[in-house]
């Protein structure tokens, strides 16, 4: 029900490419933030001795990042804003990696400056933006909505660079900007606050044409409060801020271009170039003009000339285009750091001495590089963490130990992971087993016995894979398609591993395999489109086993493929906005259109089917697309209402059973843009898993007829829940249809639909489901059928990934022995999928600096040192309430393990939900008058409806129905909320709670292992109590779920209804304490 899903990244040997386009260091000098051309944001830890280690990668942008800037006063909130080529803006919390706010505006920013005037400004401050539009935009730092513009009265043009001048002497904050045509403009900020807030037009105070084109940076010297540094690509100049008179000019060496600069100290400047060099100058006053009063009565004319003090350069003369920046902190523990990010993804730091000096003979002195680091360094250093998902398979077979995965696809229905390799081999393995074998330790037997198939057919790299049955049942479930560098497309039988058909396209590498969309119902054909790197498109008919058309005339990469079933033509839209229309029957090019006509054609067939082919998409979009596709086939609301049942009957029974039931575990393959580094993201659906586990547990129990009452109660509640889920599904399915764009459907809907999809399929439709509602047995069966082991194994894998190993050796062993939660092979890269398709993934080597001390004792996978404290706090806070329960843990031997696993798991799920949501709530509380822009209104409402029921349900259920039940829930809730306020990350909280719970549940095991006899006696006496307690607990939990479901339902039906406000305050009050 909640948008976020925990994820574990399995990286490959090669780091994803990260061509740095923007770089900044946060104010606390602990994090370096880089934005890349591929569209990702990377967070790097910067230690106090200036060592770099990559920490996290944030996915969410779909285009190249153009600029980064802080988005709040950093001490209060560690937020950074990023902007991209296509107008997306995101505010990220750089400590937790969460996306706080995002928006897409029709503006491309090239520079952003945060401005906040604490005493006269409401809200969180402004982002002053400039870019490929006239003048300066003021954007609200909180909502990312456009507040106003700073306009020009004359020669308005794009602004190339700007800086905020804050001077005590002038008593006015101003914005100094230089336009692309070299016109310097000054806007008053503090004195125009009111007119901006009242939306009156604000024009520049001053406008002066400087003789410089391609201005790269403008900086105000805060030390002298009068010098203005203007850096253009050819030269840098110093102006007097009072009258904008030119004081000095220095040209760059030939072959170099200046890219920026900063004022180091009074009369000391640092200027850097595009290729990563920098120069430190001392400005010398010419004594002459100072001592002399000008005879002609003019104002005192001062001239300065620069003297080169020191410089920095790159090693090995290897200079690549780079972006640079400089942090100049005067506070003690901080350094003056010059930093640069290259297109290769390398970060370089120079520690600039406080007083740079030249060498004794007066020649400039080189400042050495302090640190250099790349993502790949991290991957190499922590090579066990960056092992690919099927590396163990490749290793086992001799001769090709270094096969690199070049493309992969996961088939959720069959739990099969298909990986195409660089050498042309295709591996087919079981997804969960492979993940377990990759992540867990001591299961060498598993590794050895991991069932897999190798498909041999391609002579070179496998570039793309497609399992068409996933998206459309029109296709035979045994078909698997692969395209290779060798321009061959092979249709495999996935079950036998045989080649069904081989299409040799005789052109360039296959870049993309796409299937014709679902409701293309002209003929019942199984057609696959195939895009090659020479921009040709082939249509393959799988049943007829022939290539219907190979369209080869396209000059530009193919962007869109549309099918006009009426005319039987293929419409291909290219990147240059031209359109090619191919007649399928004859294979001839019917028309080629450009410009308006092309646009008209594309929009005219908008209603009919089309696919978007993105030949070289950045990874985020790639994963997003995967997510969406995953959503489409899993949600099946279309299928359920449309032609789905008919189709289902056609295919074999056995398959529909498994393929349609959405698995709680998914592997998401992802590929990076330039170096084709492949990695996989394991997604765990907590809700789903919880449900599966509980039903499984329930099934076990009922079979033993142990807790009759409990089962009944549970069954009732499940039935209720099903009904609700179903209804909810309807509303959920309704939303995207109304929106008309499935692409923007946020992932929480995805997961709600995932949930909902199953009941529908079980029944095959609403009506059939209603009939079956009465007979519990039939209903229960399918959910239990999912593969009992799969659910528990998945849960155990997740718990393994979450546990900090090595904190207590004994616990580790007990975990492994009794609960079968196995030790990890290496720390995992955890990640969070938050709503709106934003994803953050930890990178190999996260926090290695932080845990360095602990690491010696063999502790690993500890997310931070804080976790241990938190865990102890949690133990203390919940002390006693589970005291009596502990004793009963082990009375039912058959289900005990499962129970414990389930208990641990549900704890985590609960924590996850609690901690995930209040941020939205607290935000609401903090600013109830927050002007909700249209785009996030719905989201907010949803966030509340999703978050609050948990609290709400928690409180009354603990008071009303059961006398002394989960008293801990409330205190737990308080504690977690408290953590949330301390900006404890979700993973930290989850880990802390898990550790505590494991300690608590394991400890009695330890005791009982020693003295089993006495405890057995105690057990006998307590059985009844236990029964009650157990049932009440579980049912209670179920009740929580139900209430929340009901709330979701109600709220989603009336999203504008604000009646939940009363208990927001409740949440608030409990949060405070």
């Amino acid at each position: 029900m909640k948008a976020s899903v925990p994820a574990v990244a399995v990286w490959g040997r090669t780091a994803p490419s990260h061509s740095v386009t923007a770089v900044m260091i946060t104010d606390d000098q602990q994090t370096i933030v880089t934005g890349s051309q591929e569209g990702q944001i990377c967070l790097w830890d910067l230690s106090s001795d200036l060592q770099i280690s990559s920490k996290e990668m944030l996915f969410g942008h779909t285009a190249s990042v153009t600029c980064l800037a802080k988005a709040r006063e950093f001490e209060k909130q560690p937020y950074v804003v990023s902007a991209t080529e296509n107008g997306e803006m995101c505010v990220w919390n750089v400590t937790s990696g969460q996306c706080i706010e995002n928006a897409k505006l029709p503006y491309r920013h090239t520079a952003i400056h945060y401005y906040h005037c604490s005493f006269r400004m409401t809200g969180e401050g402004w982002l002053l933006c400039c870019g490929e539009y006239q003048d300066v935009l003021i954007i609200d730092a909180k909502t990312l909505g456009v507040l106003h513009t700073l306009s020009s009265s004359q020669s308005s043009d794009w602004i190339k660079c700007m800086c905020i001048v804050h001077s005590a002497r002038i008593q006015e904050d101003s914005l100094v900007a230089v336009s692309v045509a070299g016109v310097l403009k000054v806007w008053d900020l503090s004195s125009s606050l009111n007119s901006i807030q009242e939306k009156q037009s604000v024009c520049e105070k001053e406008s002066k044409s400087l003789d410089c084109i391609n201005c790269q940076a403008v900086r105000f010297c805060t030390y002298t409060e009068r010098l203005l540094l203007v850096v253009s690509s050819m030269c840098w100049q110093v102006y007097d801020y009072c009258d904008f008179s030119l004081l000095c000019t220095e040209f760059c060496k030939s072959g170099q271009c200046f890219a920026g600069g900063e004022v180091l100290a009074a009369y000391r400047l640092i200027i850097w170039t595009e290729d990563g060099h920098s120069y430190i100058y001392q400005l010398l006053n010419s004594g002459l003009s100072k001592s002399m009063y000008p005879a002609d009565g003019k104002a005192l004319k001062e001239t300065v000339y620069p003297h080169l003090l020191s410089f920095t350069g790159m090693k090995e003369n290897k200079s690549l285009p780079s972006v640079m920046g400089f942090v100049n902190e005067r506070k003690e523990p901080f350094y003056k750091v010059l930093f640069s990010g290259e297109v290769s993804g390398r970060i370089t730091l120079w520690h600039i001495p406080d007083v740079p000096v030249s060498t004794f003979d007066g020649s400039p002195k080189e400042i050495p590089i302090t640190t250099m680091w790349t993502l790949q360094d991290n991957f190499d250093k922590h090579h066990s963490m960056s092992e690919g998902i099927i590396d163990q398979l490749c290793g086992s077979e001799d001769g090709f130990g270094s096969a690199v995965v070049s493309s992969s696809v996961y088939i959720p229905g069959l739990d099969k992971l298909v990986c195409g390799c660089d050498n042309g081999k295709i591996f087919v393995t079981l997804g969960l087993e492979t993940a377990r074998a990759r992540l867990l330790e001591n299961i060498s037997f598993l590794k050895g016995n991991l069932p897999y198939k190798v498909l041999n057919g391609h002579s070179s790299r496998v570039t793309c894979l497609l399992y068409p049955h996933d998206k459309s049942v029109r296709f035979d479930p045994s078909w698997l398609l692969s395209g290779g560098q060798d321009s061959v497309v092979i249709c495999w039988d996935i079950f036998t591993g045989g080649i069904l058909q081989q299409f040799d396209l005789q052109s360039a590498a296959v870049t993309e395999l796409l299937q014709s969309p679902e409701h293309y119902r002209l003929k019942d054909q199984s057609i696959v489109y195939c895009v090659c790197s020479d921009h040709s498109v082939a249509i393959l008919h799988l049943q007829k086993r022939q290539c219907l058309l190979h369209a080869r005339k396209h000059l530009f990469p193919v962007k869109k493929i549309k099918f006009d079933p009426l005319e039987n033509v293929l419409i291909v839209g290219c990147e240059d906005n031209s359109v090619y229309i191919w007649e399928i029957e004859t294979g001839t090019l019917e028309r080629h259109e450009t410009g308006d006509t092309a646009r008209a054609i594309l929009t005219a067939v908008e209603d009919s089917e089309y696919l978007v082919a993105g030949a070289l998409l950045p990874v985020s979009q790639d994963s997003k697309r995967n997510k969406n596709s995953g959503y489409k086939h899993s949600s099946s609301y279309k299928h359920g209402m449309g032609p789905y049942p008919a189709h289902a009957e056609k295919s074999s029974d056995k398959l529909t059973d498994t393929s349609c039931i959405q698995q709680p575990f998914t592997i998401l393959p992802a590929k990076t843009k330039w170096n084709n580094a492949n990695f996989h993201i394991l997604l765990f659906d907590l809700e789903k898993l919880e449900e599966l586990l509980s039903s499984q547990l329930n099934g076990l129990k009922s079979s033993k007829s142990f807790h009759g009452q409990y089962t009944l109660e549970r069954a009732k509640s499940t039935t209720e829940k099903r009904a609700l889920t179903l209804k909810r599904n309807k509303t959920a399915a309704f939303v995207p249809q109304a929106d008309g764009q499935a692409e923007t459907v946020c992932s929480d809907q995805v997961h709600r639909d995932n949930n909902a999809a199953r009941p529908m399929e079980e029944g095959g439709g609403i009506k059939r489901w209603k009939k079956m509602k009465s007979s519990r047995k039939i209903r229960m069966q399918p959910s239990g059928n999912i593969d009992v082991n799969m659910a528990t194994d998945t849960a155990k894998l997740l718990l393994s990934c979450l546990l900090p190993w090595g904190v207590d050796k004994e616990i580790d062993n007990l975990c492994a022995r009794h609960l079968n939660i196995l030790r990890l092979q290496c720390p995992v890269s955890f990640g969070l999928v938050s709503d709106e398709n934003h994803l953050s993934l930890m990178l190999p080597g996260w926090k290695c600096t932080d845990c360095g001390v602990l690491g010696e004792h063999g502790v690993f996978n500890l997310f931070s040192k804080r976790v241990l404290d938190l865990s102890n706090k949690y133990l203390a806070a919940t002390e006693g309430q589970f005291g009596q329960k502990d004793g009963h843990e082990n009375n039912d031997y058959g289900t005990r393990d499962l129970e414990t696993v389930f208990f641990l798991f549900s704890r985590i799920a609960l924590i996850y939900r609690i901690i995930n949501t209040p941020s939205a709530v607290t935000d609401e509380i903090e600013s109830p008058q927050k002007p909700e822009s249209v785009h996030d209104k719905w989201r907010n409402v949803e966030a509340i409806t999703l978050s609050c029921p948990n609290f709400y349900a928690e409180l009354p259920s603990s008071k009303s129905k059961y006398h002394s039940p989960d008293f801990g829930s409330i205190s737990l809730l308080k504690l977690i909320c408290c953590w949330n306020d301390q900006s404890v990350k979700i993973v930290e909280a989850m880990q802390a709670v898990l550790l505590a719970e494991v300690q608590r549940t394991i400890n009695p095991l330890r005791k009982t292992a020693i003295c089993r006899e006495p405890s057995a006696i105690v057990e006998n006496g307590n059985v009844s109590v236990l029964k009650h307690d157990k049932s009440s607990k579980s049912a209670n939990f179920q009740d929580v779920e139900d209430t929340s479901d009901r709330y979701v339902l109600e709220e989603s039906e009336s999203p504008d209804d604000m009646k939940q406000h009363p208990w927001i305050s409740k949440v608030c009050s409990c949060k405070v304490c």
Partner: protein
Amino acid sequence: MAAAMASQGERAVLEEEFKWLLQEEVHAVLRQLQDILKEASHRFALPTSGSGGAVKQENFVLSTSGTDQVKGVMTLQGDALCQADVNLKMPRNNQLLHFAFREDKQWKLQQIQDARNHVNQAIYLLMNRDANYQFKTGLEVLKLMDAVMLQLSRARNRLTTPATLTLPEIASSGLTKMFTPVLPPDILVNFYINLNKLCLTVYQLHMMQPSTTKNFKPAGGSVLHNPGAMFEFGSQRYEVSHVHKVECVVPWLNDALVFFTVSLQLCQQLKDKISVFSSYWNYKPY
């Protein structure tokens, strides 16, 4: 054909060829691109700093061949319309109206300015990689080409897609206040570039009576509104009664568009040449 099959000798030849491509061919193409784009940039007559030469003024007569209801004489100076004379023959009474820009006013054609800026950015990107620069990987070239193509396609799109404005937006734009004599309240004008043409649209409005039985439905944004489109401006409802559109080809815009198309194709061809080699071996990025 693929890497696995390529023999050692074949490989060596291929690598040699790739080296030639990076060292010679790429620079040749870049130079060609630069020449074309500089030519395009000159068309936009950017007042280069230092030269001091004022940008040439050009006169364009905007009219339609059939009727002479609207006739406009425009003076274009770079990206600004510095003079405009609009003659409008009212269809009802054949009364002739005449408006001209006020002496002190200029109207900036944002589309031209944006296109010019995009081209200059593309040139700047290319200038950074002059003949002395050594490309070490194909990837580098691909990235450069992507960046240049992005700017070029934006430049082209700016000219080919005029802004879609709503009628209240047109009414409230500064354009209405630029004329002398002042435009009557029932006339709206709009200037824009569409492909290679400078376009002028004149909307004649008719005020809707509050008591009217007609359904009021405000029109959305559009490049060219049709008669019958309704809108509300300053608490008064209007309906468009007549639309006159006149245009005139600006020759240098045509040239610029051709230059854009040619250079985009050059870029794509260079990209294709580079990626051919990617079939043979994987790039080592940096």
